[in-house]
């Protein structure tokens, strides 16, 4: 027998300060997490030097534990409700409250500077608390949040003396007709980003103008619909250094003085790379922005249904450097052909539906094929369409092997290939086969278990999968759970997956962030079994209507189940219609 003595190799070559300096350059959350796992001393150094933390599910950890581990925290990102909450599948009072986080952080000695929230409930009270608790607070980003009014914004404006960023994206905000913009004190000159595009109410235009005048560092300004073209022109005169612009209401008589001033000021805005807004738009006024188009890398016209095929394509023909385009399906298949021949640098395309009724979508597979032929750099797609064929998907997969995100939404969710009458299994199979780096996939169309077989086999990098109206049996879901090693989020609605699939490999869910299943075949009994066996999962049953008693019949199918891993047990703030097993 040969005994080999094992020496513990200590990374003592570098003093802590050097390691800390090295870690400074490691910025991605994944990498920092990996660093912390190397050894105890690295864990310690990493945790003291960590400034930015991302928490993908606010119920997976508690604020107290976060604070305990990362005393140097400066920037926190939190996500609350599950993704399907975007589509009205989660009742409003489900949870995701930010207040306890702010309260805990305020009590601690954390010098919070940045807070980024997505799908969370944010009250005016929490905004006010936030604004008064952190002297160096600089940046507030709220995406798809709700629960606050302009009063909360007024508190932020008034109290955050060094505010650099106020970025509100698609939030549901109650407008109190207050003058929140006027609450920015005269001494506030530090703004870099101001985005209030999602606000529905009137704006004090004078206060806005004065604010822009005293914000020489302003780089990103996104206005809401209440700001008229006339004001836009005045603002741009004061801020020709803008890099990102969201117009307000873009309507005027092309012969007006304001419009001709706007045309000339646009010619001076040489830095604008990103353009959005156009909530109301007069097509005749679009030519004013042609001078900016040649340098644009991001263009968002997805809230401008007033622009039609011709006007859109004329505009796009000026945008040769475009990398990201968000548009409505008014553009049509032929319009995408123009995009394909003009925007050779295009990486991301989102085509949204302008009319949500069935049978009214304007896009077909043809537009997508044209796009794939012209834009080989395409790596991110969201495409609402009327129909899709396997042949088209196969062509697209071969033309664009770089897809990281591929989300296809056929408005009739069970539509098969109209040419062959086959399900779309082969088409999506080609996508996962050729696009080896695919991280996110959303499927629609008529789909059998076979597509999930392909996904399990080929989608090695897949992290998020969204399924609706698909599959024949538990086999489908099992293919995915067994095959996709990197899967983090799985969300399924109206598909025929049941207990057998749910319970086959329960440990898998601890390696994932969350699983959502609604209108599937899983029963209460199945969920209970899962909850019993996996104490580090929180299995929530969400009841459709509040009157419904939680049945004790284990054979009853569960309408909505949301499960997620958690280090802190069951949450205490769940409403009556949520039952945590």
């Amino acid at each position: 027998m040969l005994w080999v003595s094992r020496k513990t190799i200590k990374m003592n070559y570098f003093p802590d300060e050097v390691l800390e300096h090295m870690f400074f350059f490691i910025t991605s959350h994944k990498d920092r997490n990996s660093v912390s796992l190397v050894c105890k001393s690295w864990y310690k150094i990493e945790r003291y030097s960590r400034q930015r933390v991302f928490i993908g599910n606010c119920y997976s950890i508690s604020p107290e534990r976060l604070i305990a581990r990362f005393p140097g925290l400066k920037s926190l990102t939190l996500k609350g409700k599950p993704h399907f909450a975007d589509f009205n599948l989660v009742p409003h009072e489900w949870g995701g409250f930010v207040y306890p986080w702010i309260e805990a952080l305020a009590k601690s000695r954390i010098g919070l500077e940045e807070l980024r929230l997505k799908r969370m409930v944010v009250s005016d009270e929490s905004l006010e608390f936030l604004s008064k608790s952190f002297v160096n607070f600089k940046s507030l980003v709220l995406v798809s949040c709700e629960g606050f009014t302009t009063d909360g914004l007024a508190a932020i404006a008034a109290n955050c003396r060094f505010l650099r960023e106020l970025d509100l994206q698609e939030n549901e905000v109650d407008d109190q007709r207050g003058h929140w913009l006027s609450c920015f004190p005269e001494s506030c000159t530090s703004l870099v980003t101001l985005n209030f595009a999602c606000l529905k109410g009137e704006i004090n235009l004078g206060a806005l103008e004065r604010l822009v005048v005293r914000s020489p560092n302003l780089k990103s300004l996104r206005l809401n619909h209440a700001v008229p073209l006339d004001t836009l022109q005045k603002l741009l005169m004061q801020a020709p250094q803008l890099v990102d612009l969201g117009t307000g209401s873009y309507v005027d008589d092309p012969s007006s003085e304001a419009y001709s001033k706007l045309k000339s000021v646009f010619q001076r805005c040489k830095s604008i790379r990103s353009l959005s807004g156009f909530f109301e738009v007069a097509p005749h006024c679009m030519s004013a922005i042609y001078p900016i188009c040649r340098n644009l890398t991001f263009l968002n016209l997805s809230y401008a249904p007033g622009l039609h095929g011709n006007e859109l394509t004329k505009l796009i023909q000026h945008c040769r450097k475009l990398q990201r385009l968000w548009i409505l399906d008014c553009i049509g298949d032929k319009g995408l052909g123009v995009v394909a021949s003009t925007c050779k640098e295009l990486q991301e395309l989102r085509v949204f539906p302008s009319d949500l009724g069935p049978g009214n979508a304007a896009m077909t597979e043809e537009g997508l094929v044209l796009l794939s032929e012209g834009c080989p750099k395409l790596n991110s797609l969201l495409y609402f369409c009327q129909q899709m064929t396997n042949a088209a998907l196969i062509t697209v997969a071969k033309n664009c092997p770089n897809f990281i995100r591929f989300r296809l939404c056929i408005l009739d969710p069970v539509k098969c290939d109209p040419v062959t009458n086959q399900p779309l299994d082969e088409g999506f199979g080609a996508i996962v086969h050729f696009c080896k780096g695919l991280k996110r996939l959303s499927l629609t169309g008529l789909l059998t278990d076979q597509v999930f077989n392909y996904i399990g086999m080929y989608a090695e990098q897949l992290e998020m999968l969204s399924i609706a109206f698909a599959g024949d049996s538990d086999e489908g879901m099992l293919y995915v759970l067994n095959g996709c090693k990197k899967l983090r989020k799985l969300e399924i609605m109206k598909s025929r997956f049941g207990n057998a699939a749910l319970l086959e490999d329960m440990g898998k869910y601890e390696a994932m962030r969350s699983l959502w299943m609604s209108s599937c075949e899983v029963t209460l009994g199945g969920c209970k079994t899962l909850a019993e066996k996996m104490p580090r999962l929180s299995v929530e049953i969400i009841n459709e209507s509040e009157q419904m008693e939680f049945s004790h019949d284990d054979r009853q199918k569960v309408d909505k189940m949301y499960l997620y891993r958690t280090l802190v047990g069951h949450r205490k703030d769940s409403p009556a219609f949520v039952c945590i097993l």
Partner: protein
Amino acid sequence: MSPENGKHLPENYATGLNFEATELTLGLPGKPRVTISDGGAKSGTKRGFLETVDLNLGDKDCGQSQIDVQEAAKSPVSKAQVVGWPPVRGFRKNAMKSCKYVKVAVDGAPYLRKVDLQMYSSYQLLLSSLEDMFSCFIMRNYLNEKKIVDQVNGLEYVPTYEDKDGDWMMVGDVPWQMFVESCKRLRLMKSSEAIGLAPNTPPKCSSTT
């Protein structure tokens, strides 16, 4: 505002007043397009939803529960009313709702357009915008009628609209605001078909140069 060259109309544009056939979904000639019918399967050149899906349970090709398809056949529209479908954020849905969009069809054109009536304050501006959209036509004011004339084939078109009661009326007969409120969709109808449309339709004029 440069007018486009006259387009060739594809051979397979549907005859008759079939609006779905003129929708902006350019299928290759000869290929049938399957659309969701408004209630019940469509007849004619289009295959209904039912026919494209094999009803047999357990069939490997087009496995689909019988119940789902029956539901769909009864009212395919109901799929779109399923909670959570289509997957569009509530914010976006609300933002798009508050417009007065109506479809505009032109007899013989292979595509539909949409206009937001709230963008215009008068008939003149509306018709001028329609002129831009269907840019192979020019607008002519002939006597008190508002007509649109196709430069290529000399045919006259009369702007008409379907009102809340489902009646087809001449554009221009009622005050603008009333028109905006009651208009459901627009159609540029060939003059020959417009006779007898509304009680006070003037006699058809001879074609212009």
